[in-house]
């Protein structure tokens, strides 16, 4: 066997063996990974939501989903999601998943719990990081007192929420301004999304007119457009 061929054969066999092994492990861990992600979301929801008697995970709006009535799990994973909590049929509050693109270690997925009516005053109940790569022991202080406690019962004003360094009102953590900014801006964004989508369940999901940032991508998902390519479905 020429030596070049031997190189190819050996490397192919090693790569093939690795692929087989990884496929097996992936198959075996897929269930537990999905379960642990879901459990984290449910646990975080229970921790940040006000008292409720509905099923908030059933009454959610995935902002910007291609089909608002039936968002896919992958969309629910990477887009903002508004969960509505009800008590006795009335909206008691909600939780909003916000993906902040500029954390210290990359995007941060934050779940913000809110109390109140989308049309009235909205107060913060708490927040959790669902996924993040902030510095352990430093950026993660944004989840602990005294920083976290300043938001308890905080009435979110309309408009963006900023840290003092950016001309806002929120005290940042020494040495972790970026993570503090992530929290402040995520809370502002969560309140905005809740005011817009809170209380509108899956069936009445905002649609293309809802999320202004995501509208171009999702526009035309439901209604046929009178364009050259749109007339073909009668044949």
């Amino acid at each position, binding site marked *: 066997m020429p*030596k070049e061929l031997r*190189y190819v054969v050996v490397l192919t066999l090693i790569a093939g063996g690795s692929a087989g092994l990884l496929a097996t492990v992936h198959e075996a*861990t897929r269930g537990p990974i999905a379960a642990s*992600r879901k459990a984290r979301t449910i646990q975080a929801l229970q921790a940040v939501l006000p008292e409720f008697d509905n099923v908030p995970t059933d009454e959610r709006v995935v902002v910007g989903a291609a089909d608002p009535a039936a968002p896919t799990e992958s969309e629910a994973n990477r887009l903002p999601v508004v969960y509505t909590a009800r008590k006795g049929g009335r909206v008691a509050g909600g939780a909003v998943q916000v993906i902040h693109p500029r954390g210290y*270690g*990359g995007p941060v997925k934050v779940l913000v719990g809110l109390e109140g009516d989308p049309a009235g005053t909205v107060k913060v109940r708490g927040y959790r990081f669902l996924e*993040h*790569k902030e510095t352990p*022991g*430093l950026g993660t202080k944004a989840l602990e007192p005294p920083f976290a406690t300043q938001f308890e019962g905080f009435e979110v004003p309309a408009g963006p929420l900023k840290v003092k360094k950016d001309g806002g009102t929120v005290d940042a953590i020494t040495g972790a301004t970026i993570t503090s900014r992530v929290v402040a801006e995520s809370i502002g964004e969560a309140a905005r999304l809740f005011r817009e989508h809170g209380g509108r369940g899956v069936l009445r999901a905002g649609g293309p007119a809802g999320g202004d940032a995501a509208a171009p991508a999702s526009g035309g998902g439901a209604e046929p457009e009178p364009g050259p390519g749109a007339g073909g479905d009668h044949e």
Partner: protein
Amino acid sequence: MSDRTAVQELRKGLWAENPLLVMVLGMCPALAVTTTMANGLGMGAAVIFVLTCSNVVISLLRKVIPSAVRIPAFIVVIASFVTMVDLVMEGFLPDLHRSLGVFIPLIVVNCIILARAEAFASKNSVWRSALDGLGMGVGFTLAITTLGAIRELLGNGTLLGVAVLGQGFQSHAALVMILPPGGFLTLGLLMAAMQARKGR
């Protein structure tokens, strides 16, 4: 190289050839994740697993792999074990997985593992390679756990998350120890202490 006894093969990584403090390999995870003792332990456990398994597999394949393509072959083997650790950790230890974050995938490019594959496992028997991997892995773990413990204690007043230095210290903890400079300072002092003991 093979006139060492099995015990010596295992022990050399702990002290005389400690990968972190003597050979100065694997600096990136050693400095980046050692903000807490628990992170050090978790990272160490992942490295022990990857290092031992990759040493065994590479030693098994050492007569099959042509030397011209050995590096890509080693990397594929190492990357497979790292991905396995990443998946298993995310499924069963989600909290640890979250706090170690990107540094688990980065074990692939940890110099210790490739160095042991190249310098040891590709030239020695399976049994010796397994002992070497285990010893080096434990040596690395001891070093980064010590590093993590010192930084957590001085920077946050806790050990494994339990407050040990009291509230008075905690409110004035040396924040710099958690920050990157604290990592370099602690590592430098540990290495100096190690040299001083060896030089005696």
